[in-house]
Structures are given as C-alpha cells and as structure tokens.
C-alpha cells in the first residue's frame, strides 16, 4: 500500500510538472490540478495514514495513535483542496479571458514566431 501511494504521488507529480512546463494555458491548468492532487495525497500520507480507525477520541477507545488517526492532516488537506480548487477556477477564468483577448492559448499571450497556431 505504501508503495502504491508513493508511485501514485510520483506519477501525479511527474505528469503535473511535465504539463506545467508546456507553454499552453490549458495544459498548465491541468498540470497544476494534477500537482495539487499529488500534494493533497502527500499531506495525507505525512499524517501516518491508517485504515479503519476514526479521527476522534471517544470514551470507549484509548486516546493513543494506535486507536485513532491524526485528524490534523485531514483538516490540512481540506484547506489545501479548497484553496487549490478556488485557484484553479480563477486560473481557468483568467485563461479564458486571455484567450478571448489575444486569440491564443499560449501563455505568452500570442503565438510564437515560426510555429503554427493549433
């Protein structure tokens, strides 16, 4: 399971960075989305993930890390998800507006010389 998570995070990050380095706004948006998935998983794993145990202290369980999961990474992930979701929405709106203003989805606001527009 650890290996699977590590591979998953690595794949997301790799694809995200590759897409981010392409000079098209839509690719960059996708890249940032994948990157934020990787980051969210990473935060979650950093809290020593466990399955089948609740994140709340309850009177019929001992309040130790063996019986409960750490609730803080879950709160952090929620915050990170909200922020990255809002930022993606903002970036998409900005990309659309730029596309309308410059008739190109190149991040430099115009097709580079010697390259056919897609």
């Amino acid at each position, binding site marked *: 399971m650890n290996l699977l998570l590590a591979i998953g995070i690595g794949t997301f990050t790799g694809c995200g960075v590759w897409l981010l380095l392409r000079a098209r706004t839509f690719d960059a948006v996708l890249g*940032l989305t994948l990157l934020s998935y990787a980051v969210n998983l990473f*935060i979650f794993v950093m809290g020593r993930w466990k399955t089948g145990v609740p994140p709340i202290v309850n009177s019929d369980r001992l309040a130790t890390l063996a019986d409960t999961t750490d609730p803080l990474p879950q709160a952090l992930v929620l*915050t990170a998800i909200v*922020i990255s979701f809002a930022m993606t929405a903002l970036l998409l709106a*900005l990309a659309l507006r730029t596309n309308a203003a410059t008739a190109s989805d190149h991040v430099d606001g115009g097709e580079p010389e010697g390259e056919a527009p897609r």
Partner: protein
Amino acid sequence: MNHLIVAPVALPLVAGALCALLGGRRPRLAAALSLGATLGLVAIAVALALHANGGTVQAYLLGNWAAPFGISLALDRLAALMLVLTALVALVSLLYALGGDHARGAHFHSLFQFQLMGLCGAFLTADLFNLFVFFEVLLSASYGLLLHGDGAGQRERFKATVHYVIFNLAGSALFLIAVSLLYGLTGTLNMADLAIRLADLPPDSAALAQAAALMLLVVFAVKAALLPLYFWLPDAYASATAPVAALFAIMTKVGVYAIARTTTLLFRDGTDGLASAASLVFAPMLPVLALATLVLAAIGVLAATRLRGLIAYLVVASAGTLLLCLGLATRDSVAAGLFYLVNSTLVAAAWFLIADRVARARSSGDELLQPTALARGTWAPLGVAFFIAAVAVAGMPPLAGFFGKALLLQAAGHTAWAGWTVALVLGSSLAIVVALARAGSSIFWKPVADSGSTAAPRHHAMHTAAVVVGLALVASASVFARPLSAFTDAAASQLFDRRAYIGAVLGADPVPPAYDVRREMRDRGEAK
C-alpha cells in the same frame, strides 16, 4: 490577552467584505470605508509598534487553544515594523488610487483590503500552515489587483498575470509539500514548537528536514525575487496599474520577512543549545544568490527601456541587498537590513506613483526612456520628485538609503563576504545612479521640438497628495533615522534571542472561560 494583536487581520477582513457588498452600488461609500479602514490600520499598527517596543514578545491564541494545538499569532518588533510599513504603503497607494484608478474596474477596494489582511496575517502568524493560508489570501487578492484596470496595457497585464498566477500556484504546491514534510517529521506546525522539535530529530530524518527547509527557501525566494526566481517580477510590476504596483512594493518584502523569520527561528546555528539537523541549510546559499541577484538587477536597471521596467529592477536590487543582509546572518547585518527595508519599500512605492505621473504628463503618454515633450507646468514638480526619489533609492546622502547601505557595509566588514559585499553593493549603486541619471536627463532635459505645447494632463489633487505623502515618509525615515535604527537594532537582537519568542508563544495561557458549558451540562445531567 491583548486583543489589539488580531485587529490588523480582522479590520481589513470586515472592511473588505463590506466593500465587496457595497462595491457596485455605492462606490463612494466603499471608497470612504476603504480609506477609513486603512487609516485605522495605520493607527493600530503604530499602537502595536509602540507596544512591541516594550521588548516582550506577545502571543495571541486564536480560538483560545493552548499553544502548539491551536493557531497562535505573535507580535514582536519585526512583525510590528512590517505592520507599520504595510499600513503606510497601503495609505500612500490608496490615496493615489482615489485619484481615479480605483474606478477603472470593479471591486478594487475589497481586493485591496483582502490583500492587506493577507499581508498583516503573514507578518503576525506563528504557525507555518497559517502562514501558507495568509500567503494564499494575499496572493489571490494580488491576482485580482494585478488584473485591475481597463484600457491601456490590458493585454500586457493579462500576459503578466498568467505567468504570475501559474508561477505562484506552483510555488504554493511546493510550500505545502515542505510544510507537510515538516509536520510528518515533527508532528507540529507551530513555529516555536517546531524550533524545539527540529533540535530533537533523530539523525535518520536529517536529510528530509533539510530538504523541507530548502523547499521553503525556494518558496520564499519566489516571493522575495531572489536570483533564479525573480523573472516574473519585472513584467508583473511594470504592467500593473500604478497604485497596485505601489502596494506590491511590500509584496517582495513578505518573502524577505519569511526568510528572516525562518532563518532566525528555525534554521540557524545551534549556539543557543537548539542545534538541529536542518541548522544553517540556508546559510551557504543566501549570500551567493543575493550577490548574483544584485549583479543581474544592476544590468537590468541599465538595460531597461521603460521607466516602470527600470523601477521594477530597482525593486529586485533592493530585494538582493536585503537578502544579502539576511544571508550574512550576523546581528548587525540583520539590523542594517531591517533599516534598509523601511527606506527601500517606501521609496519603491513612491517611484511607481511618480512614474505614472511622468507617463501622464508626457505628450506621447508612455514611459519609454526617450525624449518627448512634457506638459506645461509639470516639469518642475515632477523633476523635483524624480530627483528626491532617485537620491533615496540610489543610496546617496542625505537620505536614509545611504545610512542603510553604510550600515550594511559596516556589518559586512566582519564576515567572510566583506570584499564581495563592498564591491557589488557599491557597484550596483553606481549602476543605479548612472541609469537614473540617464533616465532623468532623457525625460526632463533633452530638448524636443514641440516642448511646452501640450495641454496640462488630467490631474487630481489626490495624486499630488499621494506622491507628497510618499516622499515625506521617505524623508522622515531619514530625519528620524536615529530612533528608527534603534528600533531595527532592537528588532534584530530580539530575532536572535529565539528562546524569548519560543517561551512567549508556547507559554501563552488560554483565557479561562466565563461560562463553563461542560460543567453546567454535567450539573443538569445532560452530558456524560
């Protein structure tokens, strides 16, 4: 607890939310509210600075949770200094915006206030994740502000904003990775607690802690415009509307502040018994990168073809100087850096406003550094403003930029970097003097055929007021150089005494509840 500490975050938040509601329908009311809130912020920041000057670090527990579990704010001299500076720059920028620029798009005032909220929060917080959240608040407001303004230069602004947003979002992802890595290693996000926990790390997690520290450095260097990561800045600052660019003068200082805080609190030598695996990871890199930033900024200043581009490189140069001060990592160099920070921020804000006035007064309406006619009657006031700002930014006597650079050179004399620092700081100052002299003479002195024939530009009393206030602040930083340097000196000493900060943050007691709800429920038999 002193509730005034949370006011710099709460006041802009409330004002920004109200402005968002009023924005479209009652623009005059929103503007008045925004101005009132900014004036209030100045008053609060000054009160907090006087308070912090008592010498004790004050912690404020948000939500009344005991220290490492809840989120704490902490007020020390450095935080108070940054708050005052933020409020003053905001006031100057807002005064200028009220001269007409605020009406060039929707919701200027609410974005402006949210930006202030993010800035104040980032300076006050003592929690690493909370720092990330406030960074996001100030960044998302700055995305909106950067796009603000219709008409001329809109295409440029779109392009610069796309770069700025994508770059900063990638930076945020890196910030989250670093923060969660530190959380995984130490189990805490409170910076005071983190400083202690990092010292107790087992040796096998040393490499991970160092990796997290370096990722944090990359993130802060993006904000502070350090060498390989400053390329977003000239475009963004040169294409922003003038009052927004003036406000952004404080934005690079957030990165500088974060580097100052983390190098003195988390990642520094263990002479005070808190040696950790991640000690001094910044130390070998900062001076080299800062000096290289200075060199490239000097080249950028000389090569600039537009006045705003030139000023943007002046901001990069000041960031390089500041990070050099932090990189030398002695108490004196940090004190010199904090003194220089005040002057360089105020003068950068004034510069963007002057550049906008110059562009409006020229017959060509642009700010290319080529001779063109100036409108009648603008030659003398603009020339005087240009000259004062040039003296202040180049670090010439009698203005405070000179004292800042002199203090830095004095402090560098005792370090291994003395020769390089003297050569490159003086060399970049010379380049700045040459570039500004050339820009000033081509704008004001080169004769042009139709000189004086153009009509006076659209002028607003607020513009004059903002430029005068901005330059008066620069001048008063020189007049009151002695108390100011005493304050920055004390702030640097306080930064290097991290035990006091840790003790204050971790020792803050929650306020006992006025009503103990649990006991009442127990008494009534409604709870276990």
